[in-house]
């Protein structure tokens, strides 16, 4: 549905300094997919989204919506944002304060390229508003809505003209924590129920993991890994992704034993030699980073986790509600460990912990 090829955009922050915001980004979003651009602020995710919208002018590259090029440096095609028929939800919601709820939603139908006959407007607006459960508020002035209601109004306005594509720029970031949690689930259900293709931009990993069919993690203007939420979380192929999605202990190491065609490797790390799973083909002697999530470090030995046994001194333990966030010092380096909340180990005591080789991921540095 959406094809982005080799998209690049440079910002001239000052006359002499330029900043490559988007660096040859390519991705494809299939029909009906919710595709998420996830990354820290300044990684180029919003700029990429705005290029798809037509609100930014890329330096080079190509964007196709439903097979039609809307922006192409090859052919020089460029469709202005108002003609792209793409729905967009802005981070600030951008609810027009001088209009009622109804008028906000009717705007794209009245002034958009479709030019919907006024007889149909009433019905279509009401339908869109009832989908987001705002139909009872349609005559209210838009500024009189709560944050969550404004967010749903912005959504109704974005899909009322039944666009092929919906763009969502951090739509949940202005909501309070509780509401954000509810809306995460609701938003996905809503998008799925209308069957719309969506690109979603966020810096919150939990939102990305809950909402998406496919996640693309971005850093420094590039997509560093693309995959399903489960993939991204369980099989990061890149130290940045391993640390950005969830938490990871990252250990520098050297491959000391590897068999061709096999991903079982042994890596020399400051904690000793660990049995690891390589995420790519690695050779003997290759420098790698081993990622081990704190929640995958266990204190009870079982059949699977005895591959790696580590011993260290407990240097800190803080209670974080559902768990104990602990730090072990092993050979002068810190290993973060998540323990059961009921356990209250003594600071300074020696502990033995276990980690399965499945959870020690060796990736190219």
């Amino acid at each position, binding site marked *: 549905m959406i094809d982005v090829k080799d998209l690049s955009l440079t910002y001239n922050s000052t006359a002499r300094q330029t900043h490559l915001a988007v660096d040859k980004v390519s991705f494809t979003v299939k029909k009906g997919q919710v595709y998420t651009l996830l990354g820290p602020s300044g990684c180029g995710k919003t700029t990429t989204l705005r290029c798809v919208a037509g609100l930014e002018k890329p330096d080079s590259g190509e964007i196709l919506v439903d097979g039609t090029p809307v*922006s*192409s*440096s090859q052919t020089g095609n*460029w469709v202005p944002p*108002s003609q792209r028929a793409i729905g*967009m939800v802005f981070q600030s*919601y*951008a609810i027009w*304060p001088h209009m009622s709820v109804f008028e906000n939603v009717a705007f794209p139908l009245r002034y958009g390229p479709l030019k919907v006959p006024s007889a149909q407007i009433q019905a279509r607006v009401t339908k869109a508003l009832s989908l987001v459960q705002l139909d009872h508020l349609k005559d209210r002035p838009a500024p009189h809505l709560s944050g969550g209601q404004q967010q749903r109004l912005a959504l109704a306005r974005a899909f009322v003209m039944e666009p092929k594509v919906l763009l969502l720029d951090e739509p949940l970031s202005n909501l309070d924590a509780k509401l954000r949690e509810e809306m995460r689930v609701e938003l996905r259900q809503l998008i799925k129920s209308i069957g719309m293709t969506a690109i979603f931009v966020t810096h919150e990993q939990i939102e990305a993991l809950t909402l998406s069919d496919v996640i693309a993690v971005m850093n420094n203007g590039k997509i560093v890994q693309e995959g399903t939420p489960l993939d991204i979380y369980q099989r990061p192929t890149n130290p940045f992704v391993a640390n950005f999605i969830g938490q990871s202990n990252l250990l520098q190491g050297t491959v000391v034993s590897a068999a061709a065609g096999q991903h079982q490797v042994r890596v020399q790390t400051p904690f000793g030699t660990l049995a690891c799973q390589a995420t790519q083909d690695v050779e003997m002697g290759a420098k790698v980073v081993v990622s081990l999530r704190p929640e995958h470090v266990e204190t009870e030995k079982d059949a699977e986790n005895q591959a790696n046994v580590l011993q260290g001194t407990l240097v800190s333990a803080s209670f974080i509600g559902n768990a104990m966030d602990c730090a072990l010092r092993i050979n002068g380096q810190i290993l973060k460990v998540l323990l059961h909340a009921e356990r209250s180990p003594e600071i300074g005591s020696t502990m033995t912990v276990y980690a399965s080789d499945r959870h020690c991921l060796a990736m190219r540095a």
Partner: protein
Amino acid sequence: MTIDAVPPRPMKISFLQRYDASALVMFGVVFALSLLIIAFPLIIFWLSFRVGLPIDPDATYSFVHYAKVFSDPFTFKVLLNTLGFALTTLVVSLAFGLPCAWLVERTNLPGKPVLYTLMTIGLLLPGFATAMGWLFLMHPRIGLVNAMLKSALGLEGPVFNITTVLGMGWVEGLSLAPVAFIMTAAVFRAMDPSLEESAEMSGASLGTIARRVTLPLAWPGILAAGIYIFTIGFAAFDVPAIIGWSNRIFTFSTYMVTQLSPDDGLPQYGPATALSAFVIILAAGLSWWYGRLQTRAHRYQVVTGKGYRPRLIDLGKYKLLAWSFIVGYFLLSKLIPLLIVIWASLLPYFQPPSTEAFALITLKHFNSLPWELVFEGLKNTTILVFLTPTVTLVCATAFSWVVLRSKLPGRSAFDFVAFLPHAIPNIVFGIGVLLFALYIMRGVAPIFGTIWILLIVFVVGRISYATRMTNSTMIQIHKDLEESAQMSGASTGTVIRRIIAPLLGPTFIYAWLWIALITFRELTLAVILTTRDNMTLPVVVWSLWVASGFGQAAALTLILLVLMIPIVCLYWWVARRMGFGASR
């Protein structure tokens, strides 16, 4: 590494791809008006070197006009008068405006909204009205104060003489004190009070704080206000015209008018343009300095934009003194001059109040007004009062959009152009428009002697103010509101009409009324460009005055003021509702 030699083809979006019809219309408007604004000073420079009549095809170019102007001792007398007049204006306006601003922003003075309202509305009283009042008060021969003092003290000569450079500066300063007030109040309001408080905690007395902390911090802002007032004083026409003209004390503006429409002979465009060119360069230098002061003011970080609730100084028993000062100012600048104008309009010839004088009271001047001319003037003024603010605000919106919202390369240059009419004395633009009409538009469109020429110069004269207003409001409109309309499929025209214009609405109404009021009383620009066929109401007042119909001029001034009342009330109501002016 594979060979990746072919660099990606850069994206080229043509102008027509990016901008739709309404955007192009706005570019057109902005470009055309900018061209005009630049053309007017340029035409002055051009003609200051040109020797020959407008229609003369083989004119030559030389410095003779400059030589003529600057070899004439009268020119230097005029410049010296203007300088003295502008400086007196500056001192007087700051002497009244600065204390009022300090009282409003830094003390617990009661009745602040009243002071704000009086100051804002006081700005609207035309200069020629108060000038008439002061002339009737302190004219060396017929002046009321002088006559009374002479008879009371048995003196020979007059005590006060308003027909001097100092006298005119006093009157102009009184009428510009609200400008000083509004500008310096903004400085005091934006100042971080913790700077004063920390000085107080160090044990400094109130006087020391004011001298060592408050004033030095406010200094760049005060100086900026000073330069602005000096520029207005330099180019002022009303007061020097009413008070100085008949006594042959000329300042820059009045001298220009005598050169352009002398009582005898042909207009002296050559010397007038040469002197104007000199003043443009002077004004450019002054605004460059002003700009530097502004940047310095920013560097001081006095303006923080944070919402402070400054601790106010308790005036205590001095409240009465403060209000006496304020009331004194309003008596001197507004009330007494106005009462005298009323008195003058009711007497067959001017004389001090007495039993005989009261017996003579008559409506003769009102009845004998040249009503046909008055109605003609009223008609023209009414048309201009509606068209000027409308056209100005439409143009200002286009300017703001181009400067703030379009991606046109070099767009900030348009903002600079829109600021030019603020920096260069208005009368120079008047002369530029006049010459533009005479030399360039002659064969194309005969706008000279129509109200369209007045509309052009009024719009140019107000575009700086209007763009400041639309800019500051448009900056506050979140860009997402426009972009979401774009994403909804709206064209640029629809975005302007349905999103920007409604959100700018309150600013539009406020600025519209203000420009309408300023247009209603505008004399300076009109006097240069009017002929018998496009007189405005203030010009009719002026022509009556020149023809020595002092009583009639006073009568028509009063009628003019009464006509202003409804718009002033509307303006006041809007300003209050919007929280402009009457702050806190």
